[in-house]
């Protein structure tokens, strides 16, 4: 009988509305909007508020509920509903695993390799959106006075620029690269929770759409900075809600992915892969995931406080009603300082992989490299108030924060020196991934140095909230994080796409980026110390010369990135086929075909040694045992499995 009912219901709906797809997701989203309006109208009717149907009142409910409807429509929860309804589970259900056509990238897909590419491509779209906003800001700042945009739009531009690049580019692009690489590196067939992994990715476009949509709201986009300091954010126009709620989705995505990484790394390593045989990229993402899981709930809380203040008239940050303005900053920075390491540690991992493989040497001081990551995780939680030296908080707390901030330079220094020692007596292949890794070493050192300067309270008092801060953060996140991201994208491009990129264009991209990055951000140190505050659309005449120079450099930097786009797109479509292991690296992801087989390993590897034993005669990291069932054409033991479909 039940089958008969099921068939009947199914016949009532055309297949497009029945099957999980973007189309069904759209239907459900509209349903979610209707539901939110209904709920809001019901409550307003109950409290006798007029008008009963009020788009402004319904907006926060829509922003929270419609995305959940979207995910249901997309099919993110289909299997869980199936399981929760008590139906018989399918132990080996791979129906949504793998990509056989481009369409498979636009649905719920449980294959970590597909998700990794979804993450990476999606993140890079936002890199270019965020970069365009930066260039528009630089157009406004090219000369004193008003050029192109009014102050409200300008404040919106820098707020969305930072939010998009932090929450929709740097954090997720690292999660994307790690998603692709980590199961392969540790010899696992997939992540521990593939369906959660798919859900994690699809939360991101929601955050992206929300943040971008804020530009179309009355009063403009959110304009209180990515820091969204209360009480300015409490009283801002409706665009602020798009940040407050958008961050929740990006944060939920981060937390879910971090849990997934932790469980995968702890429980799914191949036989013989002890913690101290793990590649440092795995160590780096293990450390990052610890940071994410512990810290991210704090930014969620800070934004929920703001949302409650805004939507329901709570007074968390209204001083006249007993609210505490400084509390916002403490809760916010308790996440947002560790977030700086969330945006840096995975890059440390990438650089370790690239340097070892391209200098043909073992990583110098492997164990200290791993321990210094953990030291940064612990110390990272003890320095948050160095962002608040001039906030008016109790003055004694500044001293311990200065000390811990300075101490964190020690494990970071250990890493820099160990990378330098890794180069010594190597055979350095100076190709694009290596150039970006070396560029990172020098530029991140500068960012670290200005970081130590900022830890010194007396200097920080003068340069807080000036362009010196803008320079510092871009040396860390552009010269640091983005350089490692480029290194990683070039390094794993052959593995992800099965194609080689154009080396010559890669070098042009590196040198252009390196030169114009410095031309853009180095002068900001100077104008900052001279007294130009940040987050201003206008400035005094004395800074005009440098600002014009910075603006022109930033546009050149933007132009150079087109070389990267062309190289990636053209090489993916028609680059020469990549071999399984073009870099002759030892880690496991290079021991399978490019791109890897749909289930990663035809037979799981056994790890017998460290990951970077370059130059050690006869050293092997992993071996592939012969399959148990004898095959007629038995191949070599360590040979890569055949090409995936």
């Amino acid at each position, binding site marked *: 009988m039940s089958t008969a009912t099921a068939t009947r219901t199914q016949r009532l709906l055309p297949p497009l509305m029945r099957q999980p797809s973007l189309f069904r997701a759209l239907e459900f989203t509209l349903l979610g909007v209707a539901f939110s309006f209904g709920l809001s109208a019901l409550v307003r009717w109950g409290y006798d508020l007029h008008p009963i149907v009020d788009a402004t009142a319904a907006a926060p409910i829509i922003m929270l509920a419609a995305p959940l409807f979207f995910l249901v429509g997309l099919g993110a929860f289909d299997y869980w509903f199936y399981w929760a309804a008590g139906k018989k589970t399918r132990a080996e259900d791979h129906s949504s695993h793998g990509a056989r056509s481009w369409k498979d990238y636009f649905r719920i897909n449980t294959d970590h390799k597909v998700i990794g590419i979804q993450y990476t491509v999606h993140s890079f779209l936002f890199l270019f959106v965020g970069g365009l906003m930066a260039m528009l800001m630089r157009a406004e700042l090219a000369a004193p006075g008003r050029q192109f945009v009014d102050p409200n739009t300008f404040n919106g531009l820098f707020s969305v620029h930072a939010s998009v690049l932090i929450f929709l580019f740097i954090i997720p692009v690292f999660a994307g690269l790690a998603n692709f690489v980590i199961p392969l590196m540790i010899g696992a067939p997939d992540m521990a929770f593939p369906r959660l992994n798919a859900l994690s990715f699809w939360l991101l476009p929601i955050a992206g759409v929300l943040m971008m949509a804020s530009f179309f709201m009355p009063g403009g986009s959110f304009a209180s900075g990515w820091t969204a300091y209360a009480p*300015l954010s409490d009283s801002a126009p409706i665009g602020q809600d798009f940040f407050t709620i958008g961050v929740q989705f990006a944060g939920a995505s981060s937390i879910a992915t971090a849990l997934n990484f932790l469980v995968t790394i702890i429980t799914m390593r191949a036989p013989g892969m002890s913690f101290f045989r793990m590649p440092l990229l795995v160590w780096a993402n293990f450390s990052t995931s610890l940071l994410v899981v512990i810290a991210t709930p704090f930014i969620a809380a800070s934004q929920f406080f703001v949302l409650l203040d805004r939507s329901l008239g709570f007074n968390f940050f209204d001083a006249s009603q007993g609210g505490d303005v400084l509390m916002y900053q403490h809760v916010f920075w308790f996440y947002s300082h560790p977030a700086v390491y969330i945006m840096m540690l995975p890059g440390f991992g990438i650089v370790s992989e690239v340097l070892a493989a391209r200098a043909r040497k073992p990583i110098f001081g492997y164990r200290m490299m791993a321990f210094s990551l953990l030291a940064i995780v612990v110390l990272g939680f003890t320095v948050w108030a160095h962002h608040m030296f*001039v906030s008016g908080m109790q003055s004694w707390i500044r001293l311990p924060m200065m000390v811990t901030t300075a101490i964190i330079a020690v494990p970071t220094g250990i890493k820099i020196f160990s990378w330098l020692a890794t180069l010594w007596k190597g055979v350095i292949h100076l190709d694009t991934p290596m150039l970006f890794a070396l560029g990172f070493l020098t530029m991140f050192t500068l960012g670290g140095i200005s970081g130590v300067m900022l830890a010194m309270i007396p200097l920080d008092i003068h340069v807080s909230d000036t362009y010196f801060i803008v320079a510092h953060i871009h040396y860390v996140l552009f010269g640091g994080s983005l350089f490692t991201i480029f290194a990683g994208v070039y390094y794993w491009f052959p593995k992800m796409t099965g194609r080689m990129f154009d080396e010559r264009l890669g070098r042009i991209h590196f040198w252009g980026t390196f030169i114009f990055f410095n031309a853009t951000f180095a002068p900001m140190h*100077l104008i900052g110390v001279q007294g130009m505050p940040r987050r201003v659309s206008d400035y005094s005449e004395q800074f005009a010369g440098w600002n014009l120079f910075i603006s022109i450099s930033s546009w050149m930097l933007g132009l150079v990135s087109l070389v990267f786009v062309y190289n990636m797109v053209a090489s993916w479509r028609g680059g020469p086929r990549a071999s399984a292991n073009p870099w002759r690296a030892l880690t496991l992801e290079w021991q399978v075909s490019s791109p890897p087989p749909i289930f990663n390993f035809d037979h799981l590897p056994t790890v017998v040694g460290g990951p970077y034993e370059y130059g050690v005669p006869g050293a092997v990291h992993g071996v592939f045992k012969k399959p148990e069932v004898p095959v007629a054409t038995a191949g070599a033991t360590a040979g890569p499995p055949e090409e995936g479909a």
Partner: protein
Amino acid sequence: MRRGNRNIAGAIIVGTIASAIGIAAGLLIHWFPTAASTQAAPIDTLWDVLLIVSIPIFVTVSCVVLFSVKWFRMRPGQEQDDGAPIHGNTRLEVVWTALPSILIASLVVYAYLVLSDIEKAPADPAREMHVNVHAQQFAWQFEYKGTNGKTVKSDDLYLPVGRSVKFDIRSDDVLHDFWVPAFRMKIDAVPGIKTHYRVTPNKLGNFEVVCAELCGLGHAFMRADVHVVSGNDFSAWLAKAGEPPAAAGGSQTAAVDGKKLFTEGNGTATACGSCHTLADAGTTAKIGPDLDKAIATLAPAAIRKDIVDPNAAIYPGFSKGIMPADFAKTLSPKELDALVNYLDKVTSK
């Protein structure tokens, strides 16, 4: 072992020369704005010390990268070679953990000494002057205790040279930050609490107060003038500013200029023209409605209501909460009348 001519001594010489040039350039660059307080010198010296310490570190890292590339770059024929299998060196690792730790510890101690120096209370607290700083979107106001015990308010900051002054800083609306770059000191103005710092101006001249914490639309324009004057000039100014309003009002002339008020504000109230377009006043801002269109048909009473209660009626395409709602407080009744008359006159043609 594979290549002979690695001239390490030469590399060290190159690094030393580069560091020397870097430090010289770093010290020659004119980094800071004018120094006008006793707090500035220790901070500027701290910066020089940080430069002297930092530049050799950066040069060392860069030199190791560059010379490694020079010496160990893959030569033709080495395509299949690997480097030397060096896994680590405990002594080296101890050195590069210990040395930076010592360096960092010394810098922290030094920074602490500078901090105590710049925040030190004056030897004679009775001689210290107190100024209340009031921040609001998007203007500063300074309050002094006048000679006759009355409070004296000013939109410009007047300070006597050579005397320690303690600022008590407050905000009514959102966060601001009271920064005088020439004094090197800043602190947030935080709703609900009072924050403080002290400086001792030591140079006569005119400087600028800059708001350094994002506070909304007018943040970039939230500035005020600082006048550091001699002790006698200051006393004279304070006495004059503290005279009954008749004198102050008299000097401003009886008729308030509505157009001037529109384009420049009154020091407390933000200028209308920084957000609104008005052909007669020559302003072109687009944050708020274009007044040539928006109020052309309105009667004076309606214009007045829109100024003092801007959220009551919102012009299409704009939203609530952007225009300051406190013009009834920040404009005197006379100023409000003048502004309404002016607007009515120039928009109803």
